């Protein structure tokens, strides 16, 4: 698969996963860019074409985890409400709420649910994260349950 094709197919997926992790458009764009720089550099060495998605999501999720080194960035959820309002006024409130809820989960849960919502198979998610498939399934179920509860209180 050529880089251009990968970039076209996976940019939005990688961007959304990064958004789920940091809930900040600029920051997510930075991480997505870093991910594609790595893909650009590593692609000539990559041979297993069938697992390209897993490979890309691994790089993206590891880049997300590495954000812990960038301590000067303020997580979106910790921004003063007024600023948050100005930046996100054109995004549907339920979408904003979903991404806010996800960004409040623990780091690995954020990645697991983002990959699940991106339609990545649970066996693949388990490989990306490094968990057993059965554990991954349980985790996804519990995260979804928590999100559903949050949405229940949001709607009422």
């Amino acid at each position: 698969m050529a880089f251009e094709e990968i970039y076209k197919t996976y940019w939005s997926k990688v961007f959304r996963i990064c958004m789920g992790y940091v809930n900040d458009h600029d920051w997510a764009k930075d991480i997505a860019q870093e991910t594609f720089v790595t893909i650009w550099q590593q692609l000539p060495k990559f041979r297993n074409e069938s697992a390209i998605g897993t490979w890309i999501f691994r790089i993206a999720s590891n880049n997300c985890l590495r954000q812990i080194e960038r301590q000067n960035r303020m997580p979106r959820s910790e921004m003063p409400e007024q600023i948050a309002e100005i930046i996100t006024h054109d995004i549907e409130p339920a979408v904003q709420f979903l991404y806010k809820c996800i960004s409040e989960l623990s780091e690995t849960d954020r990645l697991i649910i983002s990959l699940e919502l991106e339609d990545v198979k649970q066996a693949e998610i388990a490989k990306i994260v490094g968990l057993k498939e059965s554990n991954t399934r349980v985790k996804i179920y519990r995260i979804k349950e928590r999100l559903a509860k949050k949405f229940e209180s949001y709607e009422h």
Partner: protein
Amino acid sequence: MDFKALWNKQPIDAKPDIEQVVMKAEKLKRIFRLKLILLNIVLLATIVITIYANNIIANEWLVSKIGAALMLIAYISYLVAYNQLIPILFKTNPEISNLEYLNQLITINRKSAFLDTVMTNIYFALLSTGLALFLIQPFTHMKIVNGITLYAVTALCMAFALFYLKPIGMKKRKRHFDDLITKLEAINGQLREEL
């Protein structure tokens, strides 16, 4: 609630020109490499000057020779440690699973913290001892006032570096590494939680 439908409604930022992004990343790498080369040049020059000074002064005393040797060992060991520390920062493999990646980051940061603390202490201990020994012979050839002034100024400079600059730098770096390791271990713990 259809989370997938909501998830996909997130507006996506336009794709940047990746060639420009790669060019920027490469430029940053080059700048970093240049800094590394500069530090090597400065330390190598210091080594050359120390050897040259040792020859010019024609030290006959064994303590002075030991002093010069200790200073040289300090520079060389710092240089070797620094050159070993930098590549491990780039050795992370982004293609492994999150769990393995976290373990790799923790190991790298622990190694960096250890090298930083141990090497800085060794460097300062060797340098100050070496300098003190090295100056004994010139001291005996000077007038007592000049000798005391030389030792006092040197001691003052060393004390400033040893008791002010070193603790500040080390404390800051240690806090940075400790924070990072704690956070990484916490994330790692999330994957090991009992289900």
